[in-house]
Each structure stands twice: as C-alpha cells, then as structure tokens.
C-alpha cells in the first residue's frame, strides 16, 4: 500500500492525467447510460457538468467502482477503477449527493468511524474527526446525533467525513444541494481552501455552473451520456484576457498599425470601435501607452467574457457527439 501511495505521489508530481476515459461505456438495467466516453482531464480541479440524467452520477459511481464498465475503462491518477478499485478507493474521499449518514451517531463519532474504516488508527481518527468538524464549521454541533442536523449541516458533515482521512482525490457530488446562499458560499470557500492547501485533486459534480466556475480549472460537460465538451477554464480565461473590444475617439490608422507593430491583430469598425487580439507577450498597459503616445482616447475597453454559461449552452446546442475541446 505504501508503494502504491508513493506511486500516486509520483503520478501527481509527473503530471499523470487526473482522469483518463478510454471509450468508457456503462450499462445499467439493460440501458446504456454512458456511451463510449473518451478524453483526458489533466487539471487538479475538475468540474462535471450536465443536465439531469446526463450521466454525471453514473460516471462518479463508475470511478468509485460501484458500477463495472461494460466496455472501455476509466483511470484516476493512473489507477484503473475496475482492476485497481481498492487501491483507487484508498485515495478517495467521497461526498455523495443523497443523504448518507448514521442518524443515531454523534457527528464526531460518525466521522471517526469513517476515518477508521479508511485505515486511520483509532486515536488519529478521533483527532482528525475533531479537526474536520471544526474545519467545516460544525465544531459546536459535533456531539449531536447527525439525524438532528439541518440539511446544510448534514452536507457539511458529509464533507467532514470525506476529508477526515486526508484523501488524495476528493469527489463531491452536488455538494451545495439544498443549501442557502450563505451556507453555499461558505462551502465553496471551504472547497477552494482545501484545493489550495494541499495537493488534493478535486472532482466536483454539479448542475450549478457557478459552483463549478468558482472551484474548478477544467470542465467535462456531459449530455445524454456522451461528452458534449471538455473545456480548460484556465486556458479559456487566459485566452479571453487577450481579446479586447475598444471604443476610441481619435484613433487613426497609425494607432492600429502601432498595435500591429506590437504583434496584435486588429479589426477596425465604424464609430472608433476596434477589436484587438493580443499575443501572450503583450500586456494591456502597452495598449494604453500606445494610445497615450498618439493622443487616442479609449472610452471603453471590454474583455471578451465567455462565461461557463456560454460554454455550457454552446455545448448543449451542438448536435452529435463532440469529442474535441471548445
């Protein structure tokens, strides 16, 4: 097991893809739910998006080894979910979508129980259970039976049991379900903190685009059990920053040619509107400098903001199977 753990650490360090889908097909009850999913997701924080019935939960259940692929395979940090299921699950912390708790147990005992099953010795499990409960903000309620918790508290208790044993992969299925806005905000902050504070890989399934946008670097969008899109949000944001829409007064050909001299591509429209695509080496401040040198007033500057919602809607509008990137 220690050898495995070392292998996983190496995998993370050598940038082994977080999730590799190799023609994954899953059939349940005689119906094909996932249709030959193929793709590679390399980011540390992956969002799983899709409308209801798209196959998000089925994919997560397959990752956890609850469902056996009828064809193909899925690998997490280089471990096959079917053939190396136990080794894979030893790395995972899972927060299910539905109610999952033992109602008569106190919160801290419940989390300790789960941590011990994950392999923590009793004393460490107890210590980690207390830490996890305080960390998620349920410190005051930790000795109450879980059955008496509100819906939001139950979600936090589920998160506590998912992180108590210090997993390498954290799988969150609809984590903000049923939470009010402040509780949701706190949970999203927690997820971001967990992501930043360690080398943990995150897989977050949600139909709330904002949750995914705020926590993830890469998005897998599913539709009818097929991949509608795989989108790297980091690259997308970086690309958007390089696309400018300007409204200017006094801009002449010398302004655009000066920008082109910096390596930008420009398209000039009526009323002083100019669209600029900047290369990576050019910063916005240089555009202002060029404008100032030529006495051009920049009255408005917009970045193109292709939000996750646009990406999602585009993916949903596409017909047929999209296996490429947006």
């Amino acid at each position, binding site marked *: *097991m220690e050898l495995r753990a070392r292998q996983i650490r190496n995998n993370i360090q050598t940038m082994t893809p977080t999730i590799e889908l190799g023609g994954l097909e899953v059939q*349940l*009850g*005689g119906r094909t739910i996932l249709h030959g999913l193929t793709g590679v997701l390399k980011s540390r924080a992956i969002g799983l998006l899709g409308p209801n019935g798209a196959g998000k939960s089925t994919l997560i*259940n397959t990752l*956890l080894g*609850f*469902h056996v692929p009828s064809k193909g395979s899925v690998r997490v940090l280089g471990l096959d979910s079917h053939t190396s299921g*136990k*080794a894979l*699950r*030893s790395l*995972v912390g*899972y927060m*299910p979508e*539905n*109610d*999952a*708790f*033992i*109602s*008569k147990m106190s919160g801290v005992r419940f989390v300790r*129980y*789960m941590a*011990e*099953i*994950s*392999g*923590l*010795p009793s004393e*460490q499990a107890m210590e*980690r259970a*207390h*830490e996890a409960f*305080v*960390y998620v903000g349920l*410190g005051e309620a930790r000795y109450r039976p879980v*059955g008496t918790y509100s819906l939001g508290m139950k979600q936090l208790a589920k998160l506590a*049991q998912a*992180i108590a*044993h*210090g*997993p*390498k992969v954290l*799988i969150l299925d609809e984590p903000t379900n049923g939470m009010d806005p402040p509780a949701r905000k706190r949970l999203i902050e927690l997820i971001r*903190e*967990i992501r930043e*504070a*360690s*080398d*943990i890989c995150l897989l977050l399934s949600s139909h709330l685009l904002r949750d995914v946008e705020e926590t993830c670097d890469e998005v897998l969008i599913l539709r009818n059990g097929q991949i509608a899109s795989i989108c790297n949000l980091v690259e997308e944001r970086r690309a958007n920053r390089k696309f400018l829409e300007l409204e200017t007064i006094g801009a002449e050909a010398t302004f655009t040619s000066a920008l082109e001299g910096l390596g930008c591509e420009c398209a000039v429209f009526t009323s002083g509107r100019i669209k600029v695509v900047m290369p990576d080496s050019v910063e916005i401040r240089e555009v202002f400098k060029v404008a100032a040198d030529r006495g051009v007033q920049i009255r408005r500057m917009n970045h193109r903001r292709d939000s996750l919602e646009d990406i999602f809607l585009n993916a949903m509008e596409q017909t047929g199977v999209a296996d490429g990137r947006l």
Partner: protein
Amino acid sequence: MAVYKRRYNSYTGSLTPTWSRFFVLTRFAFADLFKSRFFVLLLILCIIPCLFSAGYIFVANNKTLQLLIQLRSVDFFKVENQYFIVILMGQAWAAFFLNCWVGPVLISGDLTNGALPLFLSRPFSRADYVLGKLAVLGLLLSAITWIPCLLLFGLQSGLAHNGWIWSHLWMVVPIVLCSAIWILTLSLLSLAVSAWVKLRIVATGVIFITFFIPAGLGEMFNHIMGTYWGALLNFSNMFQIIVERGFRDPYSLLDRMSRHEIPIPAAWASLIFVCLLSLVILNARLRARETVHG
C-alpha cells in the same frame, strides 16, 4: 495539528492493516450494544443457566455435598453426553432470542440513511462489511454457546477423576461444530432480515416467522403427502438432530419422532441452505447503488 488552527491538512501518518478494518464495524457495534441496559440484562440472563450448570457439575463431583443434601440416587448427578446436549440446546435457544434482539438493527441502521456508499467508497468491500457485522453476532453468540460449554467441559474435566477427560474428549468437536452451524445460521439469517426490514420489531417478527412458519408448513406437507421430508423446514429440529447425533445420544429426537429416514447430511444441508439463501439476499441488498431495470 491543533483544532483551533482550522486549516486543512492531508494525513501522512500510519494506516492499519487492510485485513483488520472489518473489525472497526464490530467494535463500534459492540460499543452501541453495550449502551443498552436491556441488552446487558438479556446477556446476563443468557449466561445465568451456565452458572447453574457449573454448580451442578460441582455438586456432581463432590460426594460430601451430595451426602449433605441427602441425595438418594447416585445417578442423579451424572455429567455425560446428555448433560451437554441439554446445556447446548438451552444455550442455542438463548442465542436465538439474543440474536432476535441484536441482529435486526445491525444493517438496517446503515441502510436507512444511505450510509452504505460511504463504507463502500473506501478500501472496504461488501465482504468486509458482512464479515464485520457477522463478527458481532459470532462473538456474542459464541460467548453464550460453545465458550461456556467448553468451560463447563473443562470444569468437569478438572473435577472428575479416572481419566474422564480422555474418555470424553471427543465431545469438544460436537460442542464447537454444532454451535458453529447454529451461530452461522442465526447470524446470516438475521443479517439478511436486517438488510430487508428497517423496523426492529418487524424484523424480529420476520426472524420468528422464518423459524416457525416453515416448520408448520413442513408438518402440513408431511401430513398431506404422508412423508417425513417436510421436517427439513423445521430448522430448530434439524439442529437438534445434528446435536443429538453429534453427541451420540441413543435416545435422540430422531428415534423418538420416528424420523429415522432423515439422514444427518440432510439436516446439515437444511441449515446450510438457510445460510446460502441469506447470503444471496445480502448480496442482492448490499449495493452501493441500486440499479433500476427496464
């Protein structure tokens, strides 16, 4: 890390061996059970007959005491195979009642609020889960069946003379084997019921029904068809047959009930069938996710 720091840290400490983790379930279940005063009372009641039996053995091996209580028949206090049959059968029924109280809540508590995916999303298989729960009943029922019987056997061996232990050593095998099949049957049956029925009272009722209704149906079958094979559905009788034959009892239930025809392997098969059926039910019910067919 101190709790006040409120910062996420990954765990880098040692882990327990994978094979031993099923015992976590057993430990937590025992902790929950011993919180119940009724359970403790029930357990004590189940052990009390063994204390009386120990007293009986003491008197049987103490001639002075026998003279003091002015016992006329010397044969009254006789510790032979029939004595152990009575003890084992009595403790088997105690085990049945204790099992009816403990068994029904072992799995249903986890299923009621969907906790099973939490167990199975860890390096913990369904077999580990069943083993952990089975160990609860196994240890508990052992503590009131074969363990006290062996202690009584040891007590008798220590007090008796003339090489009693060597001439009766063969009884260790039926004590352990008969208890094992009874414990396994009861445990698996109550776990299977616990996986189906969430309410304790209903689950306890179902365990009783499983024992008594098939026995009644078996008797009806025997009367209607003029056969004796219906007795295979009377699991407690099958156990009694196994015990009496195991202890080489010449006045066994088999002979008294004129069921010479039921062979011992059939009685074993009857109880093994219950075990297998229970395993099939557990296999069907203990799933992280249910699949809707159609």
